[in-house]
């Protein structure tokens, strides 16, 4: 016969289990929030702007400017960590809790579709619409999901090809030309080309640039996987062959952005694919050996300019916000020419307004802007899909295996297609 103590223990465990079951049953679902999206659209009042760490101190001065002009609709700045994954998880937590204190949120371009599909972002239609005519089309694509605009592009970023202009007179315009220039690198005893090939998000960026640049694509127009094509295989084969021939140094398989930049600044690379931030550092770093001997160009593709992917951020209005009218005006403020210029001059962040790329004030401060414009105009965003984490994993794992030579390109692309199908069907 059980003693009293054992009975009490059993009862408390059972009670705990029952409480647990009940409480999890109470957790909120993520179904369509059309009702919430419409609420508060005329309402004005103070709002909060949520963004990751403001390393270049651009946000605070902007918010001060807005607050002076709108004393009744003050914006408070909520600063998150500087790690992209933590920013993502923080937003997910607050959206799931239906936090009405997150009004305008800064989302990375690859999360916009995911948040839109979960019903957390207000569609920018009707009263919430913004003017996209002056914006670069590729940036608008990243903020569009299911043919609806869900966020306002805020800053952009594209790929640049850094090259040694003392060794190569004119930069190559196609991939084949670049590979032919590798003989110059061999004569000079340095590596030819490097990008970002470690197994992380940078590999997805480089792999999709290679695939898109050869005319292939990863997802089709309807969002279903379409990577098992001859063009995509050709694009990936370019990278694999370059590794095999030694045109990409073997150690580049461990490169993230910083390792490539260090190698280029040490004079060990002829060509480097990287982001615009390298420009200032290569020009001004004390240890940079290429201060006056490097130039920039758009990245090469199959028959001409390649298809850079897009970095950058969009600003979106949470459906749980209580003051959407103010949030909408704040979005337009973020996209105004003045603000975009400030992003560029103060934070070296590429603007999303096309005309500004030829503005003399900006090009004086950021000489790479005209080249960057060419990159972004022919850019293809990374797959715009609500299943982005699973999709990027599928691309990374299979490209990495192909680059290491563990799989043939045909096999890798076939597996990538299968993994993408699994990813976009069930999110598993």
């Amino acid at each position: 016969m059980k003693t009293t103590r054992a009975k009490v223990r059993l009862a408390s465990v059972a009670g705990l289990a029952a409480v647990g079951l009940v409480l999890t049953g109470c957790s909120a679902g993520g179904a369509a929030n059309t009702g919430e999206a419409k609420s508060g659209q005329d309402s004005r009042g103070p709002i909060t702007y949520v963004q990751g760490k403001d390393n270049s101190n651009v946000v605070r001065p902007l918010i001060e400017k807005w607050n002076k002009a709108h004393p009744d609709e003050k914006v408070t700045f909520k600063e998150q960590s500087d790690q992209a994954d933590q920013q993502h998880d923080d937003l997910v937590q607050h959206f799931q809790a239906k936090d009405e204190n997150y009004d305008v949120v800064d989302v990375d371009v690859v999360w916009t579709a995911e948040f839109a599909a979960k019903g957390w972002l207000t569609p920018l239609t009707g009263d919430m619409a913004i003017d996209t005519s002056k914006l670069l089309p590729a940036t608008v694509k990243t903020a569009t999901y299911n043919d609806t605009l869900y966020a306002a592009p805020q800053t952009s970023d594209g790929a640049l090809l850094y090259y040694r202009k003392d060794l190569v007179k004119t930069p190559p315009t196609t991939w084949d030309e670049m590979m032919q220039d590798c003989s110059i690198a061999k004569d000079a005893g340095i590596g030819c080309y490097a990008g970002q090939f470690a197994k992380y998000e940078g590999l997805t960026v480089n792999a999709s640039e290679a695939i898109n640049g050869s005319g292939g694509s990863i997802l089709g127009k309807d969002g279903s996987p379409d990577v098992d094509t001859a063009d995509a295989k050709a694009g990936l084969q370019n990278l694999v062959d370059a590794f095999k021939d030694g045109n990409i140094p073997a150690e580049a398989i461990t490169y993230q952005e910083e390792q490539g930049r260090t190698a280029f600044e040490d004079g060990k690379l002829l060509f480097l694919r990287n982001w615009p931030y390298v420009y200032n550092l290569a020009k001004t770093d004390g240890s940079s050996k290429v201060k006056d001997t490097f130039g920039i160009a758009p990245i090469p593709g199959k028959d001409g300019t390649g298809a850079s992917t897009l970095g950058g951020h969009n600003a979106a209005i949470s459906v749980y916000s209580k003051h959407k009218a103010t949030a909408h005006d704040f979005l337009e403020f973020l996209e105004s020419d003045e603000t975009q210029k400030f992003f560029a001059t103060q934070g070296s962040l590429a603007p999303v307004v096309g005309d500004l790329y030829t503005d003399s004030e900006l090009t004086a401060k950021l000489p790479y802007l005209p080249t960057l414009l060419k990159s972004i105009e022919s850019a293809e965003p990374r797959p715009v899909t609500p299943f982005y984490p699973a999709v990027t994993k599928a691309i990374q794992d299979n490209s990495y295996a192909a680059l290491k030579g563990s799989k043939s390109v045909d096999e890798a692309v076939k597996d990538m297609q299968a993994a993408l199908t699994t990813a976009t069907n069930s999110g598993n």
Partner: protein
Amino acid sequence: MSAATEIPAAVPDPAGMEPPKRRTGGLNAEHGRWAVYLIGPTIALLAIVIGYPVVSAVVQSFQLDQGLDKATGLFVQGGFAGVTNYVHWLGQQCGTTTCPPGSLGAQFWVSMGNTFFFTVVTVALETVIGVWMAIIMNRDFRGRALVRAAILVPWAIPTAVTAKLWYFIFDANGVLNHVIGQQVLWTSSEWASRWAVIIADTWKTTPFMALLILAGLQLIPEEVYEAGKMDGASTVQRFWNITLPLIKPALMVAVLFRVLDALRMYDLPAILTGGGGGSGNATTTLSILVVDQIRQGFNSASALSTITFLVIFAVAFVFVRFLGANVVQTQAAQQKGELK
């Protein structure tokens, strides 16, 4: 009539009698009630912070993740899943097909293998090096306090910082390659990346083992060694026959803790290699898989973390039941001769 043949008066049979109730310092009913009041809040807090998430995770693991409604393009609640999530991980089924390479489901058994490999190798290395360090720290010599503090420094550094530190050391153009003169791709070759994680982990946690073993060593009285010396035991014999058996309880506890920690290893491989290496997953551990899965679907991640929990529980059970790691018994009991 002889007094000796008299049948003595009935003496109560000691075996059948209940021992008299003693008023000692032990628990009686009133003490019991006070104990409940005082411990109650802590238990309640632990139940909320530990019990509820565990139960919630198990419940969630029987739900399907949100699926996309193709018509609206929005996510809708998945329904009841039964054991689909578990079959997904254990049987590597993604829907109706085997999980293709590049999806997380395909990495389950590889991660399991990696996790166990790391556990076995790091704990074995740390035990050997830990015992050696503990013996050194136990000796009496000038500067012993400094040596003890220096040995503990790796343990004091946060794991994420350690991982970044070793990331730079293991860089293709880093210090280690410079010193050994070879161009080893530590973060990308299959076995090099595994050994990179093992080296970094051993460097970081050997001090923990050394500390626990030192505690065991310090309880061994000097007389036992002297007796051994007098009996003619050599240094090696003294180590095998005196030191090791006497530190076995502390050693088993240290090994148990390390095994449990190593099975949950996350931040070191995640920051050092990103789980990559080899064809992409040579250093992915179960915890890395869980965190990756969280971003793709909570319910599937709950199933995976429940599986991880059960695996670790099974390992701990084996340790305590069969290998004699007893976290409650003290060495004092051992010295009193009450335990073998």
